[in-house]
Every structure is written in structure tokens, then in C-alpha cells.
């Protein structure tokens, strides 16, 4: 009886542990493949550069209206809501300070990367999975083209640069809208709000925010392309790849962002 219970407990613990260990090993193997391909001579050459540029255009330029809308809504909502609550507590002057730090250091890169996940990460997973099902990956591999160089690295570069740019754009719009709303509502004058932000933010904060956004974007592109390349079965693998890419990317972003906040705070 006791032996059975122990065996059950060991089995219950061992199975998730094995799965976690296998997951860690597969991530290490994937990083190894990425590094090996990144350091190998380029096999996709000029077409790889074209893919990276197309990805940059799709992720950065075509996403501008969506990012602008989300950033403007965030700036307006947080300013109005936070001011209403803070005023009750006599902490009105802290609203600009908190919003500045929150948006530039944490929410900006995170939300820009979440938008990129929703728009580009899913598209990458669907495109790569479809390429696999249509035999494009076999044809390229059969020609001696490194699939990671063709499908993964150009998208990592394109999405990383695009997300860095979108982060700057997101931060600028959020803070810009917050300043305007604060001025219109009489919460703080333009100059007072700007001075507060200047006081609380370091000159290099925006740069590091963009770097963080770029790193998030690279992670999203890498995960999405890798998930797409693993599609095998049939047409059902495309929606499955899209779902996996979105879920894993958002988990990666949430965990990484939380860890960075803990480290930096």
C-alpha cells in the first residue's frame, strides 16, 4: 500500500520533471542550432536579406496604426484613471512619475512585443508551417540551403529591429497622449508634466527600452519560426502552430518581463 503510494507520488513527480527536462534540452538544442546557423556561411544570401526587409516592413510599418491606437488608449486610460484615484489620496504628482517609469521601462517594450506576437508572430508561424506542408522546406533543404538561415534568422533580425522601433513609437505616443490629456483635464500643465518626466527618466532609459523591445521581438520571431518549422502532420498543423507560437511567445514575454523587473528593482 505504502509502496504503491510512493510509486504513484514518484510517477506523478517524475513525469512533469521529465517533460520539463526534455523541454529545457530542446530549448538548448534549438539555441545551438541557431548559433551554428548564424555562424555558418550564408546559404540564402540576398534572398535572406530580402525576407528580413519584408518582415521589417510588415512588422514595423504596417503595424503603426494598431500600435498608435493601443498606445493612445493606454496613455489616456491610465492618466485619467490613475489621476482620479491618486487625487483621492493626495498623490496627484506621482501619476506622471509612475506612468513614465511604467511605460518606458516595462509596459512599452512588453506591450509592443505582445502586439508583435499577435500580428507578426502568428503570421510567421502560419507562413513557415504552410511552407513546410507545401514542400518548400524540403525543396530548400534539398538544394543545400540552411532552413534556419532562410526562415529563422531573417525574421529574427526583421522583427527585432521592428519591435525596437515600435517600442519607441509606443512610448512616445503613450506619454504624448498622457501629457495632452493631463493638460486638457487640468491635471498638470504641459511643462510641469514634461519636467516631471525629465526628472524621473534617465536619458538612456528610452534606448534600453528599445533594446528590451528588440530582444523581446527576437524571442517572439525565433519561437514562432521554430514552431512553424516543426509542423509535420497535415493542414491541422498550421492552426496548431499559430496557437503554440502565440501562447509560448506570450508566456516567454510575461516571464522574462517579470524576471527583469525583479532584477532591476
Amino acid at each position: 500500500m505504502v509502496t504503491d503510494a510512493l510509486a504513484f507520488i514518484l510517477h506523478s513527480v517524475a513525469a512533469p520533471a521529465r517533460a520539463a527536462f526534455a523541454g529545457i534540452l530542446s530549448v538548448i538544442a534549438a539555441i545551438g542550432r541557431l548559433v551554428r546557423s548564424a555562424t555558418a556561411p550564408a546559404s540564402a544570401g540576398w534572398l535572406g536579406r530580402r525576407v528580413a526587409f519584408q518582415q521589417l516592413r510588415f512588422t514595423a510599418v504596417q503595424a503603426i496604426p494598431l500600435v498608435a491606437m493601443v498606445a493612445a488608449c493606454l496613455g489616456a486610460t491610465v492618466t485619467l484613471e490613475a489621476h482620479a484615484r491618486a487625487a483621492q489620496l493626495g498623490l496627484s504628482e506621482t501619476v506622471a512619475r509612475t506612468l513614465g517609469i511604467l511605460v518606458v521601462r516595462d509596459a512599452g517594450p512588453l506591450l509592443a512585443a505582445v502586439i508583435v506576437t499577435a500580428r507578426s508572430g502568428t503570421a510567421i508561424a502560419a507562413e513557415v508551417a504552410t511552407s513546410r506542408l507545401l514542400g518548400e522546406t524540403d525543396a530548400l533543404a534539398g538544394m543545400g540551403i540552411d532552413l534556419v538561415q532562410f526562415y529563422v534568422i531573417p525574421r529574427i533580425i526583421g522583427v527585432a529591429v521592428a519591435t525596437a522601433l515600435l517600442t519607441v513609437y509606443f512610448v512616445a505616443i503613450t506619454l504624448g497622449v498622457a501629457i495632452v490629456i493631463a493638460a486638457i483635464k487640468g491635471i498638470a500643465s504641459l511643462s510641469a508634466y514634461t519636467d516631471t518626466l525629465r526628472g524621473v527618466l534617465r536619458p538612456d532609459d528610452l534606448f534600453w527600452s528599445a533594446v528590451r523591445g528588440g530582444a523581446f521581438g527576437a524571442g517572439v520571431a525565433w519561437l514562432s519560426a521554430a514552431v512553424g518549422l516543426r509542423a509535420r502532420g497535415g493542414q491541422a498543423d498550421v492552426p496548431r502552430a499559430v496557437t503554440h507560437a502565440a501562447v509560448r511567445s506570450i508566456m516567454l514575454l510575461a516571464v522574462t518581463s517579470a524576471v527583469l523587473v525583479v532584477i532591476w528593482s
Partner: protein
Amino acid sequence: MTAIRLHGVCPPDDTEWCRPTDIDIAEGTFFVIRTTPSRAGRLARLALGLIEPAEGTVEVLGVEVHSASRAALDKMRRSIGSVLQPDGLLGTFSLETNLALAASVRGALLKSESRGAAREVLARCGLSSLAQTRPGTLPPDSRQTAALARALVCQPAMVILDDPIAAVKSRSAVELYRLCREMSRTVVILTHRRNDVLYDLADVVALWDSEGFRTDAAA
């Protein structure tokens, strides 16, 4: 010298292949194998190292495919032109770009040179007017011809073609098969049905069915 040698090969998870198979294809031959689509696909992918055999060895152009280094495998693949099923033409790029990519990899050419090589082969295959067209909009015969053109660009040492131009009319097909012979030293064609046009051009015809692999001029 042997272009392709399979020794005691069984692919993984395959019930149709049935038994370990030995195949020898000499360099410089126009070799036609009539078999099922499943076996044809497996054989082409085994030869290119895209799947690993459950047992046995595969040697292609002097390279033991599944124990070769990555660099040796890539070099071997770059000297082979192939048409697989599905054809794998990149749907987001024009025919010229599809062929130029193959040319730049196979011939280590610059972008402008590879585009030139692509245009030349497209012209020889009668597809000049479709150079800027994407594969998805093409009729089946043009698409198959384009996939064949991609396999032939930069004159690879060997081509492995899995049922390459089944939808092309027989007169054009003869010209295309002749072009294969002209542009590549070794031509291996896997066909799924009896094809008299192809048999007339072939040096060796083999039949591969449930009874095994056998060379047969009357196959």
C-alpha cells in the same frame, strides 16, 4: 563511379517499402525507375538526406549521406537538382527569383549572375514570359516545367526528378527530357506510370514494386 547506391535500405515507418533494398545507379546514365508515388518520394528524400533510413546505407556522389558532415552533405546537395512532390516552389516569390535562389546556392553566383542564369534556363524551358509570375497562379504544366527548370539551373552533376512533368504534353515533354540529358550528367527520373516517351530516351529502366527492384528494359 556510382551516382546513387542504396545498400540494404529501409526507410523509417514505411509499410510499403517492404524489405531492405539495394539500388545502384551509375554516373552518366539516364535512369528511369517506375514505382509507386510513396516509394518514389522516399527514395528521392533518402538520396538528398532529408530522411534517415531505419537501416542500411545511402551513398550519393561518393558521400555516405547519413554519416557525412554537414558541410559535405550541403556540398553534395548543391551538386544535385531535384524535383520532389510537392514541388516546393516558393509561393511568395516569382519564378525568376525561385530559380535565382537555386542558382546562387548551386553555382555560388552573385545576385545579378544568378538572375541571368535563371532567365537563361527559363528561356530554354519556354517560360520567359512567365518569369515574373508567382508559382501559385500557373497552370499545372507550366508549374511543373518551372520546377524542372529550377532543378536544371547551373547544370547540376545529377538531377533526381520525382514524376516531374506528368502534366506536360508529350511533344514538349520529350524536349524537356532531352534538356535534362543535355544539362546534367546523371538523370534519375522516378515515374509513377508507364511512359513510352521516357523509356525511349532512357539508358536504363527499372521497375520497383512489391516484388522488389529490378532492371528491365521492357518495364
